[in-house]
């Protein structure tokens, strides 16, 4: 029998499994869908570790606690690219940039020449931007593969269960009634003629979007945020918004191949703050919203501190 039985092999489950194992506990992972893949929303994430940028809309606690995540991922042997984030706005949406600068920390203002120096691909199309120097990104699918490697994911519980840890995402709504789904749509494009080396966010009053480089001319383009939990087919409107943003960042994206279209629903609590909930012998890690790779390490260490040391961290709730 293992010390802990973790249900759900998405980013939350894998992070807490890795953290507990690193502290000497024995862990079993159970997921009826098997190893990480298209069935889970961790598969479709952007993989940005951008605590500064997220501060535009996320509560302060997310930016503050998420600041250590890049180090956590690097310590797991996951390739973390530390080249910061570049935020740009078209000339007509310059006021959006001012607002963004006011609501976030950890950035420096860059002009057209500064943007070109960071990302020559963008030339001088954008008159002003913000550079978040200390941010990072990773490839989510590589990260999931790295974390799952030491484990055999069981399809169902085969042996006697250890202490139950629930990381089932939106499926945990049967226990966590406050969870809701926030639909997101994303694309994966291949466009070797475009060379971007760091995540680029394009501000727009109605549809702020981002592009994350995945290497070898492949880019992740995301993501819509719609208040419903439908996982059905991508909507034409979403495709239009995503592709027009890519085109605005660089017209060369007009020639991109569309490799994948992803649709899923992010699990979120009503304040969009992720947390660990301890209730009746089960510990839940959930509500990661759009902060999966940024906040899963924080929830994992919070849960491990609680389970193995009785420490009650800032994001822990005992029901």
């Amino acid at each position, binding site marked *: 029998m293992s010390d802990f039985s973790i249900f759900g092999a998405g980013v939350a489950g894998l992070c807490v499994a890795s953290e507990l194992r690193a502290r000497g506990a024995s862990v079993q992972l159970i997921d009826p869908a098997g190893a990480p893949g298209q069935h889970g929303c961790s598969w479709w994430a952007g993989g940005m570790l951008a605590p500064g940028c997220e501060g535009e809309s996320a*509560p302060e606690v997310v930016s503050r606690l998420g600041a250590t995540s890049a180090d956590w991922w690097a310590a797991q042997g996951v390739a973390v690219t530390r080249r910061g984030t570049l935020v740009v706005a078209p000339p007509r949406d310059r006021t959006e940039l001012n607002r963004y600068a006011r609501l976030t920390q950890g950035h420096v203002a860059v002009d057209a020449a500064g943007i070109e120096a960071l990302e020559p691909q963008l030339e001088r199309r954008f008159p002003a931007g913000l550079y978040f120097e200390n941010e990072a990104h990773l490839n989510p699918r590589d990260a999931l593969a790295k974390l799952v490697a030491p484990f055999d994911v069981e399809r169902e519980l085969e042996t006697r269960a250890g202490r139950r840890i629930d990381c089932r995402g939106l499926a945990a709504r049967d226990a966590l009634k406050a969870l809701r789904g926030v639909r997101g749509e994303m694309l994966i494009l291949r466009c070797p003629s475009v060379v971007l080396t760091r995540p680029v966010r394009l501000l727009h009053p109605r549809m702020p979007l981002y592009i994350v480089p995945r290497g070898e001319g492949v880019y992740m383009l995301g993501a819509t945020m719609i208040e*419903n939990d439908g996982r059905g087919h991508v909507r034409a409107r979403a495709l239009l918004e995503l592709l027009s943003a890519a085109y605005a960042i660089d017209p060369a994206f007009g020639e991109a191949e569309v490799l994948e279209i992803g649709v899923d629903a992010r699990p979120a609590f009503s304040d969009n703050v992720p947390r660990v909930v301890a209730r009746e012998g089960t510990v839940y890690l959930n509500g990661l919203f759009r902060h999966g790779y940024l906040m899963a390490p924080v929830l994992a260490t919070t849960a491990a501190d609680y389970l193995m040391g009785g420490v009650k961290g800032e994001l822990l709730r005992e029901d």
Partner: protein
Amino acid sequence: MEVYGVALNSRLMLGTAQYPSPAVLQAAFEASGAAVATVSLRRESTGGEGQAFWSMIQALGVRVLPNTAGCQSAKEAITTALMAREVFDTDWIKLEVIGHNDTLQPDVFGLVEAAAELSAQGFKVFPYCTEDLIVGEKLLAAGCEVLMPWGAPIGSGRGLNNVHGLTRMRHEFASIPLVVDAGIGVPSHAAQAMELGFDAVLLNTAVARAGDPVAMAQAFGASVTAGRMAFEAVPIEAADTGSASTPVLGKAFLS
């Protein structure tokens, strides 16, 4: 104020888009005291999928005013209104027919056409219009019992672009409920609209995208109350010269 026979206990109407989280939205409504929530059928899609959002809006305990945001023709707006009536179970509709992609200026021709059709089908239409007096007349003739002129383009936060035109409109439609809809950026804009005698203001972006939406919602609630009190208290007229509030004559020492 009263619209379509319904008494509203606040002169602030708030939109429900663009908040950082549902929890912030709920707290902002509470802090503002708003009596009406506008909701977009388009954005927060419907049926079983959008149920959580819709339940949260219902739990606000305010009157729901669905809108036809993003519609660009009378036909599209009518279709959206019919769907909204089913989904939100109300015959109130904020009618938007957008005519210009950059300024989001209403297409007043399509607006009048859609207002007539929807009124004939039993809707209580709240038309998003300009301060054009003739458009206002046509909308009333089409069956509207309230008019919602813009202050400035949607989301621009520029305040009241045409104070003179809005003042004329207030005089022209003295007995019709008038709501300044769109373009409000800060509480002083809302207070100004209320001081001009408008019955209410409708806004969304100025609260939802503020650094602290809940505090800003409270500020707007207070400014709408202050502006209305000032209007009812009959403000003084602006003058070209100064006039001392304390008479100089009779002072003990003249220096």
